[in-house]
């Protein structure tokens, strides 16, 4: 039961990773690519982490996985914001 749930979560995570990466490669401009990337970051890694956490032997490791996910969540939001602001500043300057 737990194994099935874990597999399902990992597969869903992989889907978002691929969707995000293809988006990063195919979408036409920086801002839409930014959007694609944050999906891969938040959902792809989030679901993968959840799936992996179910398989971890002890609570400490599962807890570390949760911290990893939270860190990436905040980091991706922050850097998306920083990069978008940076790009906009440069546009308005030129």
């Amino acid at each position, binding site marked *: 039961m737990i194994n099935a749930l874990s597999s399902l979560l990992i597969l869903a995570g992989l889907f978002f990773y691929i969707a995000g990466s293809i988006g990063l490669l195919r979408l036409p401009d920086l801002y839409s690519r930014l959007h694609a990337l944050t999906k891969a970051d938040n959902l792809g890694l989030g679901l993968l982490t959840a799936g992996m956490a179910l398989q971890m032997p002890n609570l400490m490791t599962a807890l570390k996985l949760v*911290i990893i996910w939270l*860190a990436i969540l*905040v*980091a991706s*939001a*922050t850097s998306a*914001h*920083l990069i978008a*602001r940076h790009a906009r500043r440069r546009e308005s300057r030129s």
Partner: protein
Amino acid sequence: MNSTSLLVFDGLLLVSIVSLAWAALASIDARRSVILFMAFGLVLALAWARLRAPDVALAEAAIGAGLSGALLLAALHDHDRTAAGVGSSSTQNQTSAGLTTVIRWSVTLLCAALAVGLGWALVHVFDHPANDALARAVAENLDLSGVSNPVTAVLLNFRAYDTLLELAVLLTAVLGIFALGPARAGYQPAGLIFDGLTRWLVPVLILTAAYLLWVGAHAPGGAFQAGATLAAAGVVLRLAGRHQIGLPAARTLHIVLAAGVGMFLLVGFALLATGRAFLGYPPAWAGSLILLIETAAMLAIAATLVSAFVGGQPESVTIDNEE
């Protein structure tokens, strides 16, 4: 993972590493080079993980993918500022274009020859069974070293002299940086969002550093990885425009910078005084002595790396020194 898929994994990983190195070096645009170099560091951490070197992967993740990127980007800001004023060397290059082409090709050929020679030597080395004398010596004496992580045992016990000298090298480097001039101006205060990130990231980094220091006795981790993680906390604070915190003030900073070498020497001479060899720990005490030295070394490494990022004596220090 079966061996075929592992082989495919290795191949893809190495292709990305070599192409990132190539692209980082081939670019004329320094900004592009630096970003590609940071990605190169990220992928290298994966390679070290794959080669069963988690201790090295930890250091690479903290330094290669984090600190040296921040360091190079800060240098890039200086670079941008001066490049406009100074006449670039490209004009010189054009006058002697013919000669440059010859030099370029001969250097390229020499480097290619070096790679082939090195590769040929390594193929021959791998043909013979590996010489495990050192690895066996480490494994046999591990019980007496005071720690159960072999890498920590080598660094802090069996080859403690080397680590002492390495800390001296770090100290020399930071003194050189201080001697070369004032610190960089620092960063403008961060916006709301990055400031919010700093507020929880810095404490988490400090906790992680403490965890890595403690875990280094029996699992991958130790003073270097912990010091680099702690330094990352200081760099984050600088990036968020907080100049007052992140590094201690003048005299304390100098003491902390020297703490690694100092603690090593203190322990070494104390052992000499009790009739043992310099840094020849008694097995019963080895674990505690190593932790003591590692704590001092962690603080010294962190202070060194943050000072290196700052690029000189921090402002508060120069004010204090007016005597």
